[in-house]
């Protein structure tokens, strides 16, 4: 064909001088938008044109995200199960216990504390012992818990069948027994035991109720215990005084107040004790606390300070502390896992560098034709962004699957929206941070030099 311009629809080529007149004025915003959209298209094409390479790069991010989400999930799972264990002990529960064998409580102290400390709603002395038990032909030793009638209210414990014992049962030392859930299930094999009798330490007890299960390993194994009036437990164990009192306040605020007030009471009681050295620097007591409490019986001759003898512990505080400790643990696990995301980021950088050096001449051409630095930066950053988002999303899906797999092995992992968002955000941040350097390199090449390379 002839080498000159075909006549065709010929106004096409006009003198260059006409260019400025000919070209309509376009808004710079529209122009910027056109370039941006095109740049994104180029990024998508860049990612899709090398599926294997892109896939492998995204894989390193996938692994990072799965690790982060799973480890945070395991930490969170542990935290929740610890909190659940404490919660199963009942809300706003305060445990008062002696730390020294020579210093024990009169059982009547529980009732007196409720009267004196207005923030306390309920309290029970706690006697723990063991007893030989027989039911029909079954025999065995069981842990025995002796408490008063307020126990279900303190521990928020419902009954699966029957009733709990009453104030009257406690005062009359009635031989009635409430079974822990597992005891009932094991001994009686599903039939309702309420109304039947069993033998405890050779004496006949009437079964009046069965407690709801609290779950294995929780609430001090209450499911595997039998519960009797503490007056009866004293007879079984042959010990009159008690080492623990469980009390309950109506609200967390009242529980805190009660803990403070109980602390003062015990400091003073110990301070009054003739054998100790005065408890040191007591504040003036409230008048309502001044009423006569039967002083804790002290059998020893040398007692230490109140703090060494009596521990007043709010379960709320313990829950808080356990919660905090576990949160720290979760953050640590997540931090360790984040290292694997870092590795994923280096993978992205590696691939982007290869991709940049492969396309050096293309970069040079685009710059010659008018691509600005920002166009190229945007293109390569968008590629890194897409790889990390795709990897992050796939990682989340895999993390959900691995949560179920872990669950099958008894490891409870909890994936919260926050942990998912955090790890996805980290993945994207990693992609951008590690994408910046190759993108910068690409956009920095002088076009003449870039065009020379092939």
């Amino acid at each position, binding site marked *: *064909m*002839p080498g000159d311009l075909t006549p065709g629809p010929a106004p096409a080529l006009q*003198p*260059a001088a*006409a260019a400025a007149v000919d070209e309509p004025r376009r808004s710079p915003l529209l122009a910027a938008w056109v*370039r941006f959209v095109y740049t994104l298209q180029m990024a998508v094409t860049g990612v899709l044109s090398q599926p294997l390479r892109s896939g492998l790069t995204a894989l390193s991010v996938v692994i990072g995200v799965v690790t982060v989400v799973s480890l945070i999930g395991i930490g969170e799972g542990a935290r929740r199960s610890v909190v659940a264990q404490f919660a199963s002990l009942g809300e706003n529960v305060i445990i008062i216990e002696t730390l020294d064998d020579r210093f024990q409580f009169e059982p009547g102290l529980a009732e007196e504390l409720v009267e004196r400390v207005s923030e306390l709603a309920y309290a029970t002395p706690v006697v723990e012992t063991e007893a030989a038990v027989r039911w029909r032909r079954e025999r065995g030793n069981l842990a025995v818990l002796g408490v008063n009638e307020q126990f279900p209210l303190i521990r928020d414990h419902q009954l699966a069948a029957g009733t709990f014992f009453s104030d009257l049962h406690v005062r009359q030392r009635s031989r009635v027994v409430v079974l822990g859930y597992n005891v009932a299930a094991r001994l009686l094999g599903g039939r309702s035991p309420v109304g039947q009798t069993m033998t405890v330490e050779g004496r006949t007890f009437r079964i009046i109720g069965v407690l709801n299960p609290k779950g294995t390993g929780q609430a001090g194994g209450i499911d595997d215990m039998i519960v009797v009036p503490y007056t009866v437990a004293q007879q079984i164990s042959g010990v009159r005084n008690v080492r623990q009192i469980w009390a309950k306040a109506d609200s967390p605020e009242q529980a805190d107040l009660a803990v403070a007030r109980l602390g003062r009471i015990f400091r003073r009681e110990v301070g009054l004790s003739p054998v100790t050295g005065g408890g040191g620097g007591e504040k003036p007591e409230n008048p309502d606390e001044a009423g006569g409490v039967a002083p804790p019986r002290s059998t020893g001759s040398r007692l230490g300070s109140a703090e060494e003898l009596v521990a007043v512990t709010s379960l709320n505080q313990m829950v808080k502390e356990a919660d905090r400790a576990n949160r720290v643990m979760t953050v640590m696990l997540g931090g360790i896992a984040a290292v694997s995301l870092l590795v994923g980021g280096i993978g992205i950088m590696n691939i982007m560098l290869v991709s940049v050096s492969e396309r050096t001449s293309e970069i040079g051409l685009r710059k010659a034709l008018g*691509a*600005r630095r920002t166009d190229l930066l945007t293109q390569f950053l968008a590629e890194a962004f897409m790889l990390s988002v795709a990897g992050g999303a796939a990682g989340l899906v895999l993390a959900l699957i691995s949560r179920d797999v872990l669950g099958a092995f008894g490891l409870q992992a909890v994936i919260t929206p926050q942990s998912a968002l955090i790890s996805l955000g980290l993945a994207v941040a990693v992609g951008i941070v590690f994408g910046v350097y190759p993108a910068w390199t690409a956009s920095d090449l002088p076009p003449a030099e870039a*065009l020379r390379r092939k």
Partner: protein
Amino acid sequence: MSIPLAELSNIHRVFRQGQVEVHALRGVDLRIDHGEFVSIMGPSGSGKSTLLNIIGCLDRPTSGRYLLEGRDVVSMNDSRLADLRNRFIGFVFQMFHLLPKLTAVQNVELPLIYRGWPAADRRRRAVEVLQAVGLGERLHHRPTQMSGGEQQRVAIARALAGRPSLILADEPTGNLDSRNSEEIMNLFVRLNREQGITIVQVTHEPDMAQMGKRIVYMRDGCVVGEERLS
């Protein structure tokens, strides 16, 4: 014409490769007016391509002054230079430099994309220019499906798409047989004559140089002679 299209004074370009300094240009003075057709000739390593790159704002001189239509190019930042190239200059390379994954139309659209034209406008213009260079039948072919001459015409269409004042061609016929070379040169001549587009080409081949209006001879980084053709 009062303002020259390009005016270079005392242009030096030094490349550093490790410890070695290579003086590619040693004080070049050159004036190119609107409507000229200049061929730069000289042996390999004489600095022809370096000079063309500097005229095309693909490279910056180490020292010297360069005014493009009266604008001081040396002091411009990279993105102003990119815009300048995009609006004023069309490039034609020896190796064509077409993007292999794009069709002819898509290749020609590239400068219009960076000018921010919407898709429909740039498509219309790309088709128009491809038809004008005689490739109306090849719009959606990829470079690999075309002959060398066809590829170079796509590249010329790409250079023309943005209606430049200046076309810079670095050995545009260096990879073509004599028949295709002649066709490409005829295309340049007509663009120069009929549309007043200024053309500057680097070439080894005296035949091709003879088709322009002026020949600039270079040696060892200096302009050593000039010849005006009638």
